[in-house]
């Protein structure tokens, strides 16, 4: 309670408590923000590491190659059914056919089937296109 008495420096009552509270808020907030920034820096470092760049560049090249292959091997407006064992590949192929062909949910109405198979044409994979 000593800090509630006027001091010789002329500070108002409660001055020391208020200063201590402000310092505590500054320290706690700065620490929390600082830890978060450090965490973010680690994430950016991991994203931009050499192996990450190589892997993701290969993935993107693969995707753009398949995108071009769809447009060169399928007629525009074709109805296609995606046949692939990997769910993510199915979603990617539906995405990459969008705007060029019309994906179907079942094989019955489709004139073509497409899939991703191991190969050399698109950085380790190839687009498999078949007429039904």
């Amino acid at each position: 309670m000593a800090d509630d008495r006027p001091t010789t420096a002329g500070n108002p009552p409660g001055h020391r408590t208020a200063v201590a509270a402000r310092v505590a808020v500054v320290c706690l907030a700065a620490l929390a923000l600082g830890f978060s920034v450090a965490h973010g820096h680690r994430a950016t470092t991991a994203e931009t590491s050499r192996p990450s760049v190589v892997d993701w560049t290969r993935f993107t090249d693969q995707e753009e190659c398949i995108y071009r292959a769809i447009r060169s091997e399928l007629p525009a407006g074709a109805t296609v059914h995606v046949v692939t064992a990997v769910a993510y590949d199915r979603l990617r192929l539906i995405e990459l056919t969008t705007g060029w062909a019309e994906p179907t949910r079942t094989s019955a109405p489709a004139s073509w089937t497409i899939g991703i198979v191991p190969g050399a044409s698109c950085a380790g994979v190839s687009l498999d296109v078949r007429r039904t």
Partner: protein
Amino acid sequence: MTPALVTVVLGLGLAGAFPTCVVVRCTPVVVFLAPLVGAVLAAVAVELELVLDGPFLLWFLVVVAAVNGGAFCLRRSVGGGRAPWGTGSSWKWFLVTVGVLVGVMVLPLAGLRTPLIGFDTNAIWLTHTLLVSGGHHTLLAGMQNPAYVTAHPDYPPLVPAAGALAFALFGTGTLRVAVEVTALLNACAVGVVGVGIASIGAGGRQAARTVALIVAAVLCLVGFAVAGDYAVNGYADLLWSAAAVGAVVWGLVLPRNRQALAVAWACAMVAGLTKNEGLLTSLVVLVLISLRYVPVRWPRPGGHTTTATADRTRRAEARGWVRRAVSVVGPALPGLIWVGLVRHDGISDAFFAKTTSESIALRARATTAGMAVHLAVVPVALVVLAIGCGYLRADRVRVGIATPAWLWAAWIGALAGIAGTYVLGSPEIHWWLQTSDDRTTIFPVFLLYADLAVWLVVATDGLLTATGRRSTGGGTAAGATGTTPAGPGGLDAEGPVPAATT
């Protein structure tokens, strides 16, 4: 990277610059807000594309012309005395604020050097972007095609619209440009939050302003840190979250004035047009903003002495509720229109399409446990809140910002809305949480970091003021420098809110 920059700065930024300047004036926030306003215009163009025939680019140009024309008329009607380029802060401070915030965000944006593409970016956002790029028939047929059900065709159109503009300008040869546009829009939304924090010190002495700017810069880095890879891999979660935090900071923390309200509404529009949970959160924030700007005055018992007085009071109350309703529905309208359009076209939200066999209690327990993992900042924020409310209230009042109750009400309301979606939705809860709770908690976490940043600026300002009082022999910093607490970016000082604003 250049095509994405050109799309965001010239395509979206130029489209939104004039309307933003007319309403907000040329303060630093315009640099970050204009591309977001441009993206809102692009999203409205997608709504028109869905309803009417024609390509996306045509509708974008129509909407941009209409809104810029409207802004020109608005500027003429208010007269030349309120020039949009009349600044509340000096050009030097404008450039320093923008330079520092853009400069720090270059660091996390370095992640764009790696061509990251997220799962949802492929499955949802790039698919939607290609649908929007294809024109009315492709968009409508695609949204109704059952093959696209996993792409969540009901998701709002802002991110696909911005990507489609990039495709319209640079072609679809490189799909990655759309991912980069989303990352740059994320940065813009985080920048709006940063300028809001920086403006807390705008009315004080140079040291307080500098501290506020440094804290704002750190908070921008925190925004990217909270989102992690999602900030640069094409996901839309940081965009809606940061926009919603921007709406809270400008609408529920900074002093009440027209410009802050306009920024908050624009941010709410962005959040509502980016994701479904963004619309839910923006509605919560808009309700709180309406209550702050048009306060509810509860009648005192026995306060009305005559029937005429009671009638006048009732009419005033009714007008107040109309104003509140308009100020909630107005900014949310583009998002609500999208919801109406997709329902009209027979598209339903996949998360509520089926019934679940899991009990509400089980889902609630799983949701609480799953979300709590990501809310580690809550204890620190609560301790700071307790200390701040106990000892720093006078500092907060001197700086001129609102009580923290508004921010925390937004936090609780939005968190309850998101948790309620998990509890009442239909997907298997553990899978659903595992694949999304790190993204749906970006908003509540970033909002609490913003609260910490606000308290940090307030406490530092208090320390600087106390030091100033000791050295000058009394008086506050504001009093010593002859300034009064000013609004954001050196805008109007807080006072009675003009009726026209709400």
